[in-house]
């Protein structure tokens, strides 16, 4: 039987200033009717280029060197633009990563689907509206007619992505490409979208090419998987075989890098005795009254970032803080570092701290923070040397002569070569930049290190290396960690205790052993754990 989508020996270059850069090399894969084929790769692997190539929407500097792309036998490369426009949306469609940017902000949600129905299925305006409403209902949207009249910014992330999926399925295409459709969504919402995908795919039998960086997700939904690395398909085959018994080193490394709660990375124990940090009824409020609104007697619009949080961290303890976006976990970090003012009680090393003005030199030295985005947390106009020597000079630990040696020692501690000291941040990769940020945090030998989603922007293999680095540093320095993340599998690998936050409130605090032995006590934690995709090998594919 002819496969619906067939890519054979496809090779693609991009023309750049430094010459031709190979993006895809001799890529071959196929997707049959009713099949889900996963394409797994990290950033820069070429998986996105593959999607654009199939949709025939490559950038201007793309040079197709070889190979064929066929949709149900039709040669896509040979199609003239007008034919292509008729094909797109009708026989092949795409679901994009970020629904906030892939929907037109000035058109109603209803219009964005009716225009496809009118164009490809020849429906009249009235027919299209009725069909659109029924499609919206079919993808699980509440109040379809009402939503059709609304604009994208009036819908949530999950609702928007359902709309995007509805648009893709609207004309019953032969094949749909899904480009990381859940990456921009919250864990719970992502789970729902994945369910929706499975339902619709099973129902319509559409050939699906599912692109993702997340092995766990792909393992749960794809019958076959292709692993792509630097433009080449390293390995492909039935999911059970590729992920269960990988033949290639790269696949093995990739699998090893996926956070698994069973694989414990921390082997230290927290110190007993008085807690290092203790917060009681900590509350952070955002928003202030503007000058004019005060004059007009308007109430200030206040948002509560964190409400009445009570927790304690022992010296040498790794406390993981888990929650979805908006749960208040980053707010907590900001309060502890004086970036946000708070109400309530905070004690550090026995002393009471009321706010930023209370945080003297000792506090600043003892409490350090590493941010999520390494591009933004390093000053682009300072060399690594200056970035690292600043905390040393600030806290008076190093004299002028020793600065060079101290910087070299710091770089070595984070496994970076000493000549990186001369470089600017833009000359480093994302993982290298994050290591510099970590070195900067550990430079003054702090007692508490706050890690605010430090691996969320990194590729999974880089993330694994950074996590192991943090575990090693914790072991060597005995510092306490406040490890903030949305990835509950990751936090179970590294933390001693886990605190779960939801909508600004601390929902539950539980040790990792208790979690493993008895499971979560609170319902929200249970739902959060259930929503996170687990790597499933050997079982029949399901989202665990």
């Amino acid at each position: 039987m002819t496969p619906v989508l067939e890519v054979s020996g496809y090779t693609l270059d991009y023309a750049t200033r430094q010459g031709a850069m190979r993006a895809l090399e001799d890529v071959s894969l196929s997707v049959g009717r009713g099949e889900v084929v996963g394409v797994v790769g990290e950033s820069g692997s070429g998986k996105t280029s593959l999607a654009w190539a199939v949709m025939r929407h490559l950038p201007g500097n793309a040079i197709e060197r070889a190979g064929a792309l066929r949709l149900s036998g039709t040669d896509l490369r040979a199609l003239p633009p007008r034919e292509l426009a008729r094909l797109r949306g009708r026989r092949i469609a795409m679901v994009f990563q970020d629904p906030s940017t892939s929907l037109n902000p000035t058109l109603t949600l209803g219009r964005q689907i009716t225009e496809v129905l009118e164009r490809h299925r020849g429906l009249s305006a009235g027919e299209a509206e009725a069909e659109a409403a029924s499609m919206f209902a079919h993808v699980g949207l509440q109040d379809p007619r009402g939503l059709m009249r609304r604009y994208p910014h009036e819908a949530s992330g999950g609702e928007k992505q359902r709309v995007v999926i509805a648009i893709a399925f609207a004309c019953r295409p032969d094949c749909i490409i899904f480009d990381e459709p859940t990456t921009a969504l919250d864990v719970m919402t992502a789970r729902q979208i994945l369910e929706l995908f499975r339902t619709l795919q099973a129902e319509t039998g559409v050939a699906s090419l599912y692109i993702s960086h997340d092995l766990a997700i792909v393992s749960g939904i794809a019958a076959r998987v292709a692993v792509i690395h630097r433009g080449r398909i390293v390995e492909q085959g039935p999911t059970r075989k590729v992920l269960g018994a990988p033949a290639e080193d790269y696949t093995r490394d990739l699998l090893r890098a996926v956070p698994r709660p069973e694989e414990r990375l921390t082997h230290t124990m927290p110190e007993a005795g008085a807690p290092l940090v203790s917060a009681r009824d900590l509350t952070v409020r955002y928003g202030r009254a503007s000058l004019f609104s005060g004059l007009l007697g308007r109430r200030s619009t206040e948002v509560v970032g964190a409400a009445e949080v009570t927790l304690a961290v022992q010296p040498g303890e790794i406390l993981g803080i888990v929650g979805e976006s908006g749960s208040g976990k980053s707010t907590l970090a900001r309060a502890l570092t004086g970036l946000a003012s708070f109400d309530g009680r905070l004690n550090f090393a026995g002393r009471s701290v009321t706010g930023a003005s209370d945080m003297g030199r000792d506090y600043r030295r003892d409490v350090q923070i590493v941010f999520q985005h390494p591009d933004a947390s390093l000053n682009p106009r300072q060399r690594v040397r200056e970035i690292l020597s600043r905390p040393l000079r600030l806290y008076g630990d190093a004299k002028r002569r020793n600065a060079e040696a101290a910087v070299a020692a710091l770089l070595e501690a984070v496994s970076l070569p000493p000549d990186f000291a001369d470089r600017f941040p833009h000359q480093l990769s994302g993982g290298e930049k994050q290591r510099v940020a970590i070195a900067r945090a550990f430079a003054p030998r702090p007692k508490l290190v706050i890690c605010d989603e430090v691996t969320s922007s990194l590729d999974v293999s880089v993330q694994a290396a950074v996590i192991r680095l943090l575990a090693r540093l914790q072991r060597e320095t005995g510092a306490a960690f406040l490890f903030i993340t949305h990835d509950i599998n990751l936090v179970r690998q590294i933390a001693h205790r886990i605190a779960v936050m939801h909508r600004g409130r601390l929902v539950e605090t539980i040790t990792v052993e208790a979690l493993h032995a008895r499971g979560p006590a609170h319902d929200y934690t249970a739902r959060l754990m259930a929503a996170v995709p687990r790597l499933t090998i050997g079982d029949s594919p399901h989202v665990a």
Partner: protein
Amino acid sequence: MSGRYLLRRTALILYTLLVVSVLVFGITQVLPADAATMLLGENATPEQLAAIRARLGLNDPVWTQYLRWLGGVASGDFGISLRSGLPVLPQVAEALSRSLLLALLSIGLMLAIALPLGILAAVRRGGLADLGVSLASYVGISLPEFVTATLGILLFADTLGWLPATGYVPLTEDPARSLLHLVLPVATVSLILIAHVSRMVRSELVDALHTDYVRAARLKGLPEGAVLRRHALRNALLPTITIVALDVGYVLGGIIVVEEIFAIPGIGRTLIVAIQNRDLPMIQAGALIMAATYCLMNFAADLLYAALDKRIQYA
């Protein structure tokens, strides 16, 4: 759009006008001229000067004079022109109406030409049309009004004799001749506007054509025309409204020079004459009116923008 927003906006406009009035009043106080000498001339006796000063309240502290003037303005009395002895407000209002004609025609011409040009340049990006429009707009934004006006007069009036060099004919008197006299002034003011706005439109449209949602629209198989109209242009033209509103401020400045060169008795010319003659009440009124016009235009642009961009909520 709530009443609270309107109230807030009005408060801001009033604050702006207040600041402008303080600034202008402050500047005119520093002007090396004496209102009394202006009114009575060089040959007035010291007693006469003293009498006039007392009558006009010029011996009072600056703040008092300012508040007195402000009070007058609030009740519609802008004072008496030191040059003509007539009330300021009617003069300024009449001058403003003439300037408004010039301004409206210029903006109308600008919209009619700049929008299509900008769209063309963006759609045919990198091509000959784009290059042509870009070159023309670089030249357009680099020519001060007085240069364009003078060259225009040189070419069309002196050399070719097609148009009158200077002068103003009221619209009501003789529409044909009136418009003929307005051709060069309007063209001069519009040139910079067209150059600037077409560049903005091009830039916004190019950005819009590279967004994810335009890409999504293309991948839905929509015809290019629909993609351009319904998806790209709808989003690209929004910021243009703001740009046009900001340009009004520039138009007001350009009008000053253009009216001076073409001898059009509008508010720009009135201001220049007032500045040269140290006619303080006239200067104050003129500056205030210009600032008020600018504020109102911005307000109107914000309202229009809010009505069109669904994302903005003015609570």
